[in-house]
């Protein structure tokens, strides 16, 4: 189809650029540029000024960065360590490729590959250094595994030691070859998503450099100001960390420069794609606190605009209300292009969502991923834990927070399937957010404790451990301490550790401090070990004044040689029964639990058991019978790996059994008819 003459692509392009430039300029004029709420005592450690150019012909980004690095430790430093993440996909045998079991060129053709090449490195003059070229000191290092094929970490030596508190400025020239999508960065067609793409300095601590080779886990960096000029083909719509500064600069060679700036962040990512739809909204999330939300939306997801924006607003509102105000002036959501592999990832003030073509109401996509990735602005962005080592400190915290927001804002999620690519939603099957992490955690529950560094965890257990177990720990702590106390724990943790790098022990201290309880026993069992929680009802026995008269035992947990399952009590004397209710601890973890016992005369007893012994029996003398026993009736222990054995009901209710069996029977009958259709 030909376009009308006046609407030819170049005319449209120029018109669009002018309009976008005008709009963004006006929006920028109303707000300060790229600042955050001032943080008393905050001093940047690693700030970058970058000027780079995207070449779509060669799939490269080239230019330079000027890094201002402050030695915030108590020791002088003589060399600087940098990440070159893209080199994980440069050579066969890199640690990243080894760990995921892939090879070059066996698994990846050349077009998929990537690299980051440093072409110049010089120290710029300041009060500590004279200008000096240091490129010849460049060397790859492999401190984690000695793998000489790995080039994801390099060092530069300084001409002289940088004293504690001193600053150095380095100009680094580099070229980045963009891959065909690895690990949520890369290009497909004319879509470019750039993350972990520039030479990025590691974190210097009093103990030395905290910088690892690239493992298939996430990242760690210091805070600073990112001031980045991106020159891209003029048809590109660009989104990035921070706020657009000034007008777009349109060049005669068909390129345009977009200038972004953001203070108090520890990373910078960006996206460029001609096809994006752009939506902006000012949002006052708490009285006196406003941020500008920008949504970059794929045309095929136009109908999801409101769902994306509303989810982001819920995220900003509840995280700010519960933990502390969102301090940045922008939040940019990227709806990633289909197949770009960029979905569901967080970067400061900038994050990616993701949704299928047909996103059914009732199934929280894109809401869940949007809230989750926004939530990382707090747990990762603001509270900057080392994701490479303690991923649970952001993923677990954020999975819990995200679930809580969804629960409050939307109610339960629903089961759905896709048939012929179209969704079918089952309103009857509600998935409670409190429990949604349980199945995935249980599948790997005893594989590895949380305290093993993330990059050393087995890959198959990483998600179930760092995300799901950690989320369930939070739900358990909330249930145990109460929401108000736990919210205070989290807001205190946020307040004390924002723009810093907490470790797990820092969180434990705050839990103890705020709750006023020593919760070491909890973290010893659930953080430092892979033991599991499993409490159960063993059985109820009835004795008619001294004479055994029947028993009820769960067959799956009854002691060897014990009485068998007897579904009915055969007592005839309605008076003076001695009733024994026995509960068990099947897991290694001990936890105080409540036991609810309901008698058939309607009386209800709630017992409190310290949960220490393997078995405990509650004894009663009364004329009524036990109708129901529930261990942990308030469902505090969401870490319990088997909830089904937590209850026992004397009178069988077979309606559910009948319903499920009938449904299954009907499905199988229909399957048989489809088989018959072949005959």
């Amino acid at each position: 189809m030909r376009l009308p003459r006046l609407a030819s692509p170049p005319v449209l392009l120029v018109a669009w650029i002018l309009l976008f430039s005008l709009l963004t300029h006006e929006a920028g004029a109303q707000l300060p540029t790229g600042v955050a709420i001032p943080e008393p005592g905050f001093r940047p450690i690693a700030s970058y000024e970058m000027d780079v150019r995207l070449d779509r012909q060669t799939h490269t980004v080239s230019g330079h960065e000027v890094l201002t690095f402050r030695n915030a430790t108590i020791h002088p430093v003589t060399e600087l360590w940098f990440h070159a993440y893209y080199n994980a996909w440069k050579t066969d045998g890199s640690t990243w490729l080894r760990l995921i079991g892939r090879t070059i060129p066996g698994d990846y053709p050349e077009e998929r590959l990537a690299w980051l090449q440093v072409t110049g490195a010089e120290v710029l003059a300041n009060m500590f250094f004279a200008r000096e070229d240091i490129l010849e000191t460049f060397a790859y290092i492999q401190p984690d595994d000695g793998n000489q094929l790995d080039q994801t970490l390099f060092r530069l030596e300084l001409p002289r030691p940088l004293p504690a508190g001193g600053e150095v400025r380095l100009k680094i020239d580099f070229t980045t070859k963009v891959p065909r999508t690895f690990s949520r960065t890369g290009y497909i067609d004319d879509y470019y998503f750039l993350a972990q793409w520039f030479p990025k300095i590691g974190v210097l601590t009093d103990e030395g450099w905290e910088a690892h080779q690239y493992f298939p886990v996430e990242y760690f960096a210091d805070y600073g100001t990112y001031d980045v000029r991106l020159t891209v083909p003029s048809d590109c719509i660009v989104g990035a960390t921070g706020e657009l500064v000034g007008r777009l600069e349109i060049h005669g060679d068909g390129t345009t420069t977009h200038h972004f700036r953001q203070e108090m962040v520890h990373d910078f990512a960006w996206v460029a794609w001609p096809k994006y739809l752009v939506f902006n909204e000012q949002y006052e999330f708490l009285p006196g606190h406003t941020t500008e939300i920008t949504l970059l939306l794929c045309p095929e997801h136009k109908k999801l605009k409101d769902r994306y924006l509303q989810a982001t607003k819920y995220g900003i509102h509840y995280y700010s209300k519960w933990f502390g105000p969102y301090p940045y002036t922008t939040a940019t959501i990227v709806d990633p292009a289909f197949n770009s592999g960029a979905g569901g990832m967080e970067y400061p003030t900038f994050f990616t969502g993701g949704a299928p073509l047909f996103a059914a109401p009732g199934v929280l996509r894109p809401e869940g991923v949007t809230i989750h990735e926004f939530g990382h602005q707090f747990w990762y962005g603001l509270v900057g834990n080392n994701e490479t080592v303690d991923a649970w400190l952001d993923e677990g915290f954020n999975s819990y927070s995200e679930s809580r927001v969804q629960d409050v804002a939307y109610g339960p999620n629903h089961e759905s399937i896709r048939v012929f690519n179209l969704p079918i939603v089952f309103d009857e099957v509600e998935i409670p957010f409190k429990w949604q992490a349980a199945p995935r955690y249980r599948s790997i529950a005893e594989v590895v404790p949380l305290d093993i560094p993330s990059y050393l965890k087995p890959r198959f257990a990483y998600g179930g451990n760092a995300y799901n177990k950690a989320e369930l720990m939070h739900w358990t702590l909330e249930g145990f301490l109460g929401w108000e106390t736990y919210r205070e724990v989290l807001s205190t943790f946020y307040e004390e550790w924002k723009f810093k790098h907490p470790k797990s022990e820092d969180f434990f201290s705050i839990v103890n401090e705020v709750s006023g309880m020593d919760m070491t026993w909890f973290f010893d069992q659930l953080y430092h070990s892979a033991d599991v929680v499993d409490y159960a009802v063993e059985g109820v026995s009835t004795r008619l004044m001294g004479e055994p008269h029947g028993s009820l035992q769960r067959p799956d947990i009854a002691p060897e040689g014990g009485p068998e399952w007897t579904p009915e009590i055969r007592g005839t004397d309605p008076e003076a029964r001695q009733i024994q209710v026995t509960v068990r601890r099947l897991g290694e973890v001990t936890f105080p639990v409540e036991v609810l016992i309901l008698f058939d005369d309607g009386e209800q007893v709630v017992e409190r058991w310290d949960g220490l012994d393997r078995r405990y029996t509650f004894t009663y003398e009364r004329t009524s019978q036990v109708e129901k026993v529930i261990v942990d009736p308030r469902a505090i222990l969401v870490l319990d790996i088997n909830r089904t054995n937590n209850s026992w009901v004397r009178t069988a209710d077979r309606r559910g059994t009948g319903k499920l069996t009938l449904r299954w029977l009907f499905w199988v009958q229909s399957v048989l008819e489809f088989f018959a259709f072949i005959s």
Partner: protein
Amino acid sequence: MSIITALRKGIGLASRHWRALLVVYVFNLALAGAAAVPVFRAIDAELSHTESAEQMAEGFDWLWFEEFRASRNPGEELSVSLAPWQQGLAPLIVNFERYVRGSLRRDLPSPLIWLGILYLLITTFLTGGILGLFAEEDVRFSLRFFFDRAGRYFIILLGILVVATLAYWLLWDVIGTAWRGLVANVRGEATTEWTPVLLDWLGALILVIAAFFIHMVMDYARIAGVAWEKLGLFPALLGSAGFCLHNLGKALGLFYLTTLLAALIALAYGLLVRLGGGASTGQLIVMALVQQGFILASIWIRMVYLGGQLSFYKGVLSVPISVRNPEKPRP
């Protein structure tokens, strides 16, 4: 003969021989029911004496279900195949998609595949009885007559089943696999999901049209095999193909009109189950009756296909077909 007349006659034949329908239904229910017994026991052992029983009766206890599924052993594939989507119209839609994509054997647990194969053989046998009944103008249903005809035609129908299986294999495993590969390649490089989705839908449409065509040709082969008892397998297949090609418009029209009727019945079932629900035992019984009514209707539709096509075949050839006179001219 018009396709409306043929369909009307097919409906008449299927309805008149409702006893034959019951025979097929008994096999369907017996096989599925036998498979359901261990499933019932497994669910009952885990659910009926827990606090989840009430919640499951009145809605759905997702956590209980996840625990149930996770606690199954590898040998309990039948109960593992229990799924939350097995409600309403969804099982039919899922089964239809699996049929269209030829993935029934990939997506089902092996005990159900064997059960399906057994049922396939049984229905092949019973189809002989149904066609024998339909072919006779004035015969009244009797089990003896039904099973006599079933036995008489079983060998040729089995041969047709083998050929049909080969045709489906070609369609689903060769053409279908190639198409899936194409879709996967396109999907890998697309920046919009529309491209692979549209391609996938096109592939599904091609597969369903082709599968229906195979089914139709095989139906006429079965009819020819019954009509001319002495006809061999390949003459029956060739005659069927020739008949279908010579009468393509009407043959397809009749087939799709019957398919439309099947779709309407499925929709009616979908509406009924939406209206249903409730947790009482009585409501469960009503739901079970509605479900079994639909299964009966499905078998009835299969008989309508056969009856309508047989009537059409007779009408086009303008000769009465009777197994009592096997010397009729060959098509």
